[in-house]
């Protein structure tokens, strides 16, 4: 039958083309959804301003990206992993086991974490201890460890608005969650003096855990999706407060009102100066073995950290990235192809 022959020959063509290992001519990037917008902005500009094709950028989260990164060396593995946290030593080990020995760590800048509520809502001036007292599972009242009794913000501190406590925090799969726990909840635990009493009452180990445990009575809601989901939740529950990345807030200033933290309003300037405390560095990791093998890889990395892109006047800063004050060092490390020290 004619159509059957046609189908078989088409099948043969596909099979033949599949065996021809086409040399990859574009850089492949994967990883953190926080770094994704910056990565796509640079990839787009790189494609426009160079003779190389636009790199392909995937999202999926820091951990997923680093896992893919560590799968091995070769054309069918990715070249760059974006990450909103430093690579863990366990991940470096996994990389090494699969032959990914030389890894270049590139810090692209800093990202602020902001607390915002609905634009029509009340003004908030938070401190770390406010957040600890609002969201921790156990708090200290009158020198005693009790299950969190607070239901309204003004019960914690009289200056805060008379509003139900309801917070949308990033889920545990997000890199942002780690930073939030460390720089806000843990810091608040220390700041309010609760850490000391926890340690005394519960012992060192359990006390440390109590400092980071969030309440589970529905006042703290984990958001496993993206910031768009957090925004949607705030729009339906007007008294909710969301934890966002600075760049997301900057793109939605018409819908969100941001709160100050320890008296400082978040902006790229206050974060760069170190006045706004809740920030973290953003990274990407490059396989050194792929430099020279994949066309345009080194050029892309150099373009990414160039002053035109990652500098304070560049498009990344305009989108909300806090540019790295030590960008020149990063540029030099990239030019020299400095790899991470073996640990």
């Amino acid at each position: 039958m004619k159509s059957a022959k046609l189908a078989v020959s088409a099948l043969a063509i596909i099979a033949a083309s599949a065996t021809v290992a086409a040399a990859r001519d574009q850089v492949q990037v994967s990883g953190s959804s926080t770094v994704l917008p910056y990565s796509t902005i640079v990839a787009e500009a790189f494609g426009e301003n160079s003779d190389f094709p636009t790199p392909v950028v995937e999202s999926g989260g820091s951990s997923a990206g680093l896992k893919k990164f560590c799968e091995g060396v070769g054309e069918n593995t990715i070249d760059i992993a974006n990450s909103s946290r430093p690579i863990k030593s366990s991940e470096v080990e996994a990389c090494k086991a699969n032959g990914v020995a030389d890894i270049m760590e590139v810090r692209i800048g800093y990202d602020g974490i902001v607390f915002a509520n609905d634009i029509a809502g009340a003004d908030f001036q938070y401190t770390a201890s406010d957040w600890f007292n609002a969201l921790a599972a156990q708090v200290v009242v009158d020198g005693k460890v009790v299950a969190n009794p607070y239901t309204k913000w003004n019960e914690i501190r009289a200056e805060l608005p008379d509003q139900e406590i309801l917070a949308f925090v990033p889920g545990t799969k997000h890199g942002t969650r780690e930073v939030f726990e460390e720089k806000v909840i843990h810091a608040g635990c220390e700041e309010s003096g609760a850490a000391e009493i926890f340690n005394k009452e519960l012992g060192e180990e359990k006390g440390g855990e109590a400092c980071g445990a969030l309440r589970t009575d529905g006042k703290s809601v984990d958001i496993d999706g993206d910031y768009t989901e957090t925004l949607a939740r705030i729009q339906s529950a007007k008294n909710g407060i969301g934890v966002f990345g600075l760049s997301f807030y900057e793109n939605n200033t018409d819908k969100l009102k941001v709160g100050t933290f320890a008296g400082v309003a978040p902006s790229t300037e206050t974060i760069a100066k170190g006045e706004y405390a809740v920030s973290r560095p953003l990274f990407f990791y490059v396989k050194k073995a792929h430099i020279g093998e994949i066309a345009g890889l080194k050029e892309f990395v150099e373009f990414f950290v160039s002053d035109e892109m990652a500098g304070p006047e560049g498009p990344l800063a305009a989108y909300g990235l806090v540019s790295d004050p030590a960008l020149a060092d990063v540029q030099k490390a990239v030019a020299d192809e400095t790899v991470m020290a073996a640990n």
Partner: protein
Amino acid sequence: MTDATFPVSSAPAAKSSLLVVDARTRKRNAAEARFRAYGLGAILISVALLVILMFTIFRDGTGAFRQTYLEIPVTLDAAQLDKVGNRDPEDLKKVLTTSYGKILENSLQQAITSNGINVEGLSGPDVANLISKEASAQLRNRVLANPDLVGQTVDARVLTNGRVDGYYKGRVTMETAARDSNTSPAQLQLADALKEKGLIATEWNWSFLTMPDASDQRPEAAGVGIAILGSLYMMLVVLVLAVPIGVAASIYLEEFAPKNRLTDIIEVNISNLAAVPSIVFGILGLAAFINVAGLPQSAPIVGGLVLTLMTLPTIIIATRAALKAVPPSIRDAALGVGASKMQSVFHHVLPLAMPGILTGTIIGLAQALGETAPLLLIGMVAFVRNFPGAPPEGLMDPASALPVQVYNWTQRADPAFFERASGAIIVLLVFLLCMNLFAIFLRRKFERRW
């Protein structure tokens, strides 16, 4: 006299009349009326949900098919673009898009002055940001393609930024602009003034269907071009692989295979596979096609192979049902006049089963077209700017797919991408509708009833 002709002796013992409804009949009639009401209610609820869904998608998505453009004369200043002065394309390439951005800004500034537009409180960034960042890239490409343009004044039709575009689509208002860090009321007033002069217009937007995805800073330039192409490539792979394999397998199982324990096990497994979550096929695809076979990431060929695995059970089940529906008398007649088993299948049974097979195939394809989860693991949920080449080599180039584009855009921070995502859903729905209409058409045209 007439009374005598009617038989009266057959009157039943229990008194009942066809004219008077008794209690039992009333009860049965009431039950039927209730059942009808339930059925009608069920349909009304599903129709209402569908209408709400369609209404919100079309309300949010139709904006993606219209786009606001600015048309101004642009002076391509030779001093900025060609410092060497030899119009050498190699030297022109060294001028980056940022320089073209400044040229566009200056040209807009000139257009504002020459048209006598005066807006209070207008700042430099307001003017510069009115033009999409995509415009400078387009202008640069235009100059590189034709270096003689340097030094001339050309008419340029450029995209305006997403906020100005949103203003003409009702997404942005003066009140929200006042709070928005990406625009300002002054910028919108400037846009209004330019519109009055006929320089800004909102037009039908073909480029939404032809352009590739764009980064988070330029939602106005994002399109579904690569996604449509990637989806088409994957459907091609599925069609070429799943149909022959699926049909051959079902013909063998239905017509030739001995009925024993082994074929029973195969049958159960096929039905089982049809219900396996699609993400499982993605995991399989990553392990088998990328890690073992060494096929590239993000390529439509891998996507197609994974979707082939996913649609095969659907196609096999549909084909077997179509083959079963052909009456045995056809086979018997063919065998009776001396045809071989194979002749009876290929000359008589298969042609008669064809409409059913095609319908099943198209429904399987439509299911594959809307699938995102298996593509997540093989790197197709990605930002891709370069169009894949023509098949068969193009099947190895990175591409995205329509449902993936929807998924990507709903995660972006800029609210303008929400409109794009809804627009992409409309494109996807149109594709699905066309495929299903085609399936119905085939069935109507070729189906035979016995």
